[in-house]
């Protein structure tokens, strides 16, 4: 089955890069002979994370990190809701973190062990911390638009007269509603709570010109093949396509960031060890190792100085891109996701 996130993670391609020496800063101590189970999304994403986060942790602490997965939202929900916690540290979707945290199934971040000051305030949560970021950005085909005629803002993407052609957007409301409001002139800091009806009214203006994709791999294929010539797609998808020779351009104006958090179930054994592993994943050098392998963006801004230069323009965490973007409000989506999604589905069908 495809969840959007799985498709995103599994599709991230490998780019051989200089592997940096891993610096492990630890506030956890010695865990020789102890064992912790880490569950993540599989594929290249898992391989990169294991090398950067788990192997370095084993070396530094003597702990034994067992990798399980791939994670799926359904699996994590079933496990935790039935009282299990075989997975002690889990890389999960942001919405699931919010939901399970509210249901009392996740531990609060132990800030004595995890140095959360290393990541921006907006990326720290009560029940988890962001390990990496993605960003929804403007993508366009260079075959259709030149540098000077290219769409630069979301308003451009919604302007069917000046920028004719098929658009593409995710078939999920998260992110799509945000960019519709940005296109309609809502200030980035006034986005939440989302005015859903206003966003849908704006989306009405391009509804018949838009292909809604169900997985990021599909979105990537649509724009690479020219089935759509502009729209919104995740930054690492655009990067991957460009790396593979696709003639695509991007604009970071109004990019919408979303995060991948790490969580620890309340029922998990050895909480200290768990949070020590999480702490190791916020290390800038370790995060840079993952970024260099699969082009996901580190949550720790300091990691950027260890990232390959050609990759830096593609990271939502770099200062320039960061200033142009907003982060998805997990609280809003956690509290309103069900009703907003229902309204969104209704809109899609009519």
């Amino acid at each position, binding site marked *: 089955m495809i969840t959007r996130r799985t498709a995103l993670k599994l599709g991230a391609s490998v780019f051989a890069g200089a592997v940096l020496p891993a610096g492990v800063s630890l506030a956890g101590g010695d865990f020789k002979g102890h064992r912790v189970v880490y569950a993540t999304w599989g594929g290249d994403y898992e391989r990169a994370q294991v090398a950067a986060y788990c192997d370095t942790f084993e070396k530094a602490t003597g702990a034994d990190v067992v990798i399980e997965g791939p994670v799926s939202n*359904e699996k994590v929900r079933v496990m935790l809701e039935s009282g299990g916690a075989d997975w002690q540290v889990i890389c999960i979707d942001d919405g699931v973190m919010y939901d399970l945290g509210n249901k009392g199934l996740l531990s609060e971040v132990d800030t004595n062990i995890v140095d959360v000051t290393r990541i921006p305030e907006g990326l720290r949560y009560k029940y988890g911390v962001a390990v990496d970021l993605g960003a929804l950005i403007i993508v366009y085909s260079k075959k259709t638009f030149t540098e000077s005629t290219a769409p630069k803002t979301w308003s451009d993407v919604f302007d069917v007269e000046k920028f004719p052609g098929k658009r593409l957007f995710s*078939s999920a409301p998260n992110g799509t509603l945000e960019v519709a409001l940005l296109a309609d002139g809502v200030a980035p800091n006034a986005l939440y709570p989302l005015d859903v009806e206003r966003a849908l009214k704006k989306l009405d203006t391009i*509804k018949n010109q838009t*292909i809604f994709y169900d*997985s990021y791999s599909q979105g990537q294929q649509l724009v690479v093949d020219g089935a759509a010539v502009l729209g919104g797609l995740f930054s690492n998808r655009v990067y991957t396509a460009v790396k593979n020779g696709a003639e695509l351009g991007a604009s970071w104006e109004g990019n919408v960031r979303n995060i991948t958090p790490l969580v620890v179930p309340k029922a998990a054994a050895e909480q200290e060890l768990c949070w020590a592993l999480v702490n190791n994943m916020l290390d800038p050098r370790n995060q840079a190792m993952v970024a260099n392998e699969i082009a996901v963006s580190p949550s720790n801004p300091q990691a950027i100085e260890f990232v390959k230069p050609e990759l830096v323009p593609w990271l939502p965490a770099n200062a320039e891109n960061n200033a142009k973007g907003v982060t998805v409000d997990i609280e809003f989506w956690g509290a309103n996701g*069900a009703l907003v999604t229902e309204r969104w*589905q209704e809109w899609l*069908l009519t």
Partner: protein
Amino acid sequence: MPVDHAAQDARRYLVLPAATIVVVFFIVPVIWFLMRSFSEPGWGLQNYQVFFRSSVYARVAWNTLVISLSVTGACLLLGYPLAFTMAHVRPSVRKLLMFAILIPLWTSLLVRSFAWMVLLQDNGIVNDFLIWTGVISEPLPLIYNRTGVLLGMVQVLLPFMILPLYSVMSRMDPGLLPAASTLGAKPAMAFMRVYVPLSLPGILSGSSLVFVLCLGYYVTPALLGGRGDTMIGQLIVLQVGELGNWGVAAALGFTLLVATIAISGVIFLLTRNSTRWRIR
């Protein structure tokens, strides 16, 4: 010779291992899951109120029904002649046809859906060819709409129609059609009055198999469909995976199950009556 009742009784126990597995690993979890539609977050029917709260559920249910019926009909129209051919050709050709029908089943559903995307999109192989040959000047909208969903699903499900049809047809007496014409029936008449009624069990099992498989589909409509082609399976995945709403997901699943049983029952009754009428 007297019937060996003891041996017959003993044989009944052979079904036990399979039955145990079905009950423990299928029936019990399904009941447990469906119960959640009444018990979450509190006891009651609140999860079923979603059907009245938003038009989305009724629309998606309608989509699911229409798409499933269309796919079943198309599979029958395409599969019947093919099954007929398979039942009446030399064994070597039959083997080749059987092989061709089974190949798609060995390929991942996801791969096949992506292959359809390559074929059907605006600058895909099909449209490029039609434009190149001058049949059309603008690309036909073949994908991200109902056409794409139907093409993709029919291709995936066709074997499930052909195999039951073939299994019934291959067991039919090949002398029946010649016998009918000896008695004065024209070929079309012989086919309609003799062959089709006798193949009805195959039509029935093939159609219900395809129809029931359709009802729960979600990958193909998600990849090949447009925004208006959402099926109920997609909504259930969304409720469980993204929203963690087990109650609503279970309510949708329960409704789907009841509808499936009801529709299958109606089809069964209709076909049974029509069989009687035809043969008489």
